[in-house]
């Protein structure tokens, strides 16, 4: 039965398609192949999500070797949800990628974009689905190496330095994870996540396990761009090709946050990681600093893409705050924001992709008057921006609402106040773009609206922003199930 092998196919199909892209070379064909493979992955992820939601967790033994010794792919509601986010974002963005990438990348290199894209997808899906910590490292490096490649293919020459910077930081992060895994193996003799969870409590008091935990948290936080480890992110997002930025913004940091959840709540217990190691306090402080400082920095950016990149670091702050609360509501807020932020940032970066396609610039001063020339693109940007701010009837509101609820559950009025206050900063930086685009006049008189193939994916995501903002029952019920499951595994 093919359906029994879905967890393996989820990773294997994009992995096999990537070298095929190098062989094919022809730009349109590689794009079609990548698009097809991505949608197949999306279909598999949706099937897995439905199956795990109704039938409980699945376990797949790779190569027929049983779990503690062999590599296990373990699918439950938490990672099936993330699989859907990653493959969904990739599939929608890829539709618009063809035009946008052909415009921004040298024609001889376009097939490399799709190769890197599929490898990155493989890596991200692999990190999410695997139940083996060393396998996490391997997939993490597959995803990272291909994203350095994707960033370096950006149109500006500064993309190269951004990619190099990302490579250095990313390698340090990944090596930290490797050290952490090694130290855990030293004390427990196992690499399987479920097995580790059983054996760690016995040795949790040793310095080795604590050092291993510290290395893992630092390494993963670097990948997730948790403030203040976000140094690589603004440059990488700014100079990567627009479609790549949209893909990475909607998937890469989300997967790292998922990994953080997995390590905090499943492999180590909630008591160990948040109470004993005091990470609840550390993450809360870092999260609050992130949402304020990064939103303030975003306000002062003249490059709109860089502005949204800083805003992404701020948004990771909200997720981290949700995790640090360690209640069902707090975790629900964090997980649902994972999904919601993927929707809104991806939509915003796609809208910017449309602007780059016509104007060849995302500098604020070049955007003057673009609201009248490209009404659909800018309308999408405005709705995406409203969602980012957290206006009711958009997904952003749902995440903020749950975060505020979680803060109030703890009687932390100050935190609820800060979440709302930081949203006002988002109003300022979104307003700067809106003001320039609609109320100033500039030399964009000959600009036309972006082509349909770029507009349609953008609007698909915008409609999703509104749809999941109005009827959030489905996402909330998935997220609550996931949060309960993470908190219940002691």
């Amino acid at each position: 039965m093919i359906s029994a092998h879905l967890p393996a196919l989820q990773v294997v199909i994009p992995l096999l398609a990537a070298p095929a892209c190098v062989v094919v070379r022809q730009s349109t064909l590689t794009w079609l192949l990548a698009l097809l493979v991505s949608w197949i992955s999306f279909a598999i992820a949706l099937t897995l999500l439905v199956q795990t939601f109704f039938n409980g967790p699945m376990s797949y033994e790779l190569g027929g070797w049983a779990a503690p010794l062999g590599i296990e792919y373990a699918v439950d509601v938490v990672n099936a949800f993330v699989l859907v986010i990653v493959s969904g974002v990739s599939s929608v963005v890829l539709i618009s990628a063809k035009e946008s990438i052909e415009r921004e990348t040298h024609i001889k290199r376009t097939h490399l974009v799709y190769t890197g894209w599929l490898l990155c997808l493989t890596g991200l899906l692999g990190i999410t689905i695997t139940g083996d910590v060393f396998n996490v490292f391997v997939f993490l490096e597959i995803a990272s190496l291909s994203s350095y490649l994707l960033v370096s293919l950006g149109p500006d020459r500064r993309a190269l330095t951004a990619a190099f910077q990302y490579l250095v930081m990313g390698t340090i992060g990944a090596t930290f994870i490797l050290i952490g895994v090694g130290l855990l193996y030293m004390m427990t003799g196992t690499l399987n996540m479920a097995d580790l969870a059983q054996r760690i409590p016995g040795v949790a008091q040793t310095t080795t396990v604590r050092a291993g935990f510290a290395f893992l948290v630092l390494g993963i936080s670097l990948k997730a761009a948790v403030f203040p480890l976000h140094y690589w992110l603004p440059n990488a997002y700014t100079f990567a090709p627009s479609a790549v930025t949209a893909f990475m913004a909607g998937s890469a940091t989300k997967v790292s946050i998922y990994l953080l959840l997995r390590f905090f709540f499943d492999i180590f217990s909630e008591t160990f990681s948040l109470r004993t190691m005091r990470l609840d306090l550390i993450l809360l402080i870092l999260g609050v600093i992130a949402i304020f400082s990064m939103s303030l920095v975003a306000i002062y950016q003249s490059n709109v893409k860089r502005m949204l990149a800083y805003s992404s670091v701020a948004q990771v702050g909200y997720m981290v705050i949700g995790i640090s609360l360690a209640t069902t509501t707090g975790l629900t807020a964090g997980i649902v924001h994972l999904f919601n932020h993927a929707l809104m940032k991806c939509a915003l970066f796609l809208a910017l992709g449309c602007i780059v396609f016509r104007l060849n610039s995302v500098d604020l001063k070049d955007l003057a008057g673009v609201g009248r020339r490209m009404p659909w693109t800018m309308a999408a940007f405005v709705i995406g921006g409203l969602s980012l701010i957290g206006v009711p009837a958009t997904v952003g509101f749902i995440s903020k609402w749950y975060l505020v609820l979680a803060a109030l559950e703890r009687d932390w009025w100050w935190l609820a106040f800060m979440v709302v206050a930081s949203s006002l900063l988002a109003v300022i930086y979104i307003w700067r773009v809106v003001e320039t685009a609609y109320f100033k006049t500039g030399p964009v008189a000959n600009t036309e609206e972006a082509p349909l193939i770029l507009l349609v994916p953008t609007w698909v995501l915008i409609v999703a922003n509104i749809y999941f903002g109005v009827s959030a029952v489905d996402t909330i019920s998935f997220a609550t199930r996931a949060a309960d499951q993470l908190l219940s595994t002691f």
Partner: protein
Amino acid sequence: MTTIGLFNYWIVFVLMMSGLYIVIVSTNLIKKIIGLNIFQTSVFILYISIGKVSGGTAPILVDGITLYSNPLPHVLILTAIVVGVATTALGLAIVVRIHSAFNSIDEEEIYTTSD
């Protein structure tokens, strides 16, 4: 653990810190990659040391021997070495392209010319 047993870990520690130091301090991009390599090598030694069982031989089935070293960390680190090689290759490739785009591989020179 004996002093000899801890010796490996001291080497790991020294290599790790010197590698990180080179990555942070040097402005030459090639030197940064060298630092990164030293940093990664320290982790390779860490894994290899973990696998050693005192008194154990190489894990090959031979009559009369019952104590073997643990081969798993060695296999794991083989994978990590491959990853390290790939990272170095990609890093060097990017440096080559940086050199042709900026005519320099010194970080400070690049940042002063690029804005």
